[in-house]
């Protein structure tokens, strides 16, 4: 189980600082995602970004997506370490935004074309993806007629068609009942298994779901107050948890393991100090 290794860097956050107005939101955030290699398996990587509400997760997400420029620092993606630009990584926001004036099929086609595929290839890929996400018969549907969960899947498919390997998801579990949460966890695992280089970063404050889906956890938070009681403004990555090492990665029954409970409690305790 634990013969997995971490190879080349696929995404790197370097000294990212964000100041909005006169408020320091992020301070010198550093983190990286490396290709997890499991012998004999094609397995992407899933990283969860955990942190209390209002800490700056969405802001960091926008920076990693190339939608917002940081005040300092940079984000590099692909094995060639290119500075990120909008469109290089897939983004599924909290509203699962789609083009409301296009059908599901059209939404996917346009994404494939934007991603550089010729029309026929784009359609083939789109239909295949939609089938794997169990929505094949919804090709001609209007997005407004989809349920929230179906919308989320179409949004994922759309982003995968355009930017292939990278997927950032902001709060994919918010407002879901426990059954739906399990389904989304399964979905993320399935998407991750699509390709060796698939790299998914999930933002959440749902600790249990984060442990279930991830091979790595990033904890975002402020430094604890120093001796003099002063708090540094701005959030940083306060901890990186390697779930492969802990034997918690890629195990559907993970929630029943003692190690799962230990880590949940540990994270909960850390949360209180952030």
């Amino acid at each position, binding site marked *: 189980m634990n013969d997995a290794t971490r190879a080349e860097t696929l995404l790197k956050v370097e000294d990212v600082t964000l100041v909005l107005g006169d408020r320091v939101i992020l301070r010198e955030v550093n983190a990286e995602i490396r290709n997890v290699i499991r012998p004999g398996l094609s397995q992407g990587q899933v990283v969860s970004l955990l942190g209390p509400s209002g800490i700056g997760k969405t802001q960091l997400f926008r920076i990693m*997506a190339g*939608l917002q420029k940081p005040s300092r620092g940079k984000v590099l993606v692909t094995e060639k370490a290119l500075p990120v630009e*909008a*469109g290089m*990584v*897939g*983004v599924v*926001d909290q*509203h699962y*935004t*789609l*083009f*409301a*004036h296009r059908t599901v099929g059209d939404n996917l086609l*346009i*994404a494939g074309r*934007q*991603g550089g595929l010729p029309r026929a290839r784009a359609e083939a890929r789109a239909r295949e993806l939609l089938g794997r996400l169990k929505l094949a018969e919804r090709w001609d549907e*209007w*997005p*407004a*007629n989809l349920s929230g969960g179906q919308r989320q899947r179409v949004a994922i498919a*759309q*982003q995968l068609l*355009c*930017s292939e390997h990278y997927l950032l998801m902001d709060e994919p579990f918010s407002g879901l009942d426990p059954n739906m949460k399990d389904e989304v966890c399964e979905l993320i695992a399935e998407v991750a298994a699509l390709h060796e280089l698939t790299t998914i970063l999930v933002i959440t404050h749902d600790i249990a779901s984060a442990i279930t889906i991830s091979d790595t956890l990033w904890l975002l938070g402020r430094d604890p107050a120093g001796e003099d009681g002063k708090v540094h403004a701005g959030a940083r990555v306060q901890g990186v948890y390697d779930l492969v090492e802990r034997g918690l990665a890629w195990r559907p029954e993970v929630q029943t393991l003692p190690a799962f409970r230990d880590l949940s409690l540990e994270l909960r305790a850390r949360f209180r100090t952030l």
Partner: protein
Amino acid sequence: MTRGLFSPFARVTPAQRVVAVGVFWTLVLAGWTLFHHHTAIIPTPVEVARSWVELLGQGLLVRLLESYALNLQAMALAAILSSVFAYASVVGAFRPAAKLVSQLRFLGMTGITFVFGMYFSGRGLQVAMLVFGVAVFYVTSLLSVVQGVPSGQLDHARTLRMGPWRTLWEVVVRGTFDQALDVLRQNAAMGWMMLTMVEGLVRSQGGVGVMLIDQNRRLNLAGVFALQASILAVGIGQDYFLGQLRLLLCPYSKLRER
């Protein structure tokens, strides 16, 4: 039977709807009759109908058609011009122009007519005044549609590698096309409101406005009522047509309203 009929947001049964509509129109007709008995000037529905038949003989349909053609021409021009101004407003350099056009709606037509008169005459003057009168409101409505596009949708287009111009086309122009059609519908209605006035100012071009002034001058109120009713019917028909057109071209717009 009346349960829920008078409480906000309550669901109304089909039977209740029939009752509400019936009572309303009975009251309208009763009020009309009562008014007629008080002030003998107000014509009865029967007098209006008789006058309408008479006006038919005087070429009412042709006049209506002339007016319709004028409105169509002016609305097409106003729609094109207003769309250009409103969509261009997302480009910083062009925003002041759109804002100005929108603010011109506070100007009255009276002084403007004179200025237009120096450059246009006849049909051209009519069209110019109508286009101006409608475009200032058209641009205003369309501007609020454009500004109402959530920034998340613009970001969404960017994540699909769309450049700024492509985003403008996909998210703003195409994405709000159903709302733009609704703006057209509202403004085409305003066009009819201004139409008779404009036709009255330039009488050489015919149209139902000329007839209206004629009847008004002769104090033939039944005729005035008959003409107004005709205009109302054409207007409602046009409104219905544009509403159906919107459903045809943008089937998703009905879904979004849920």
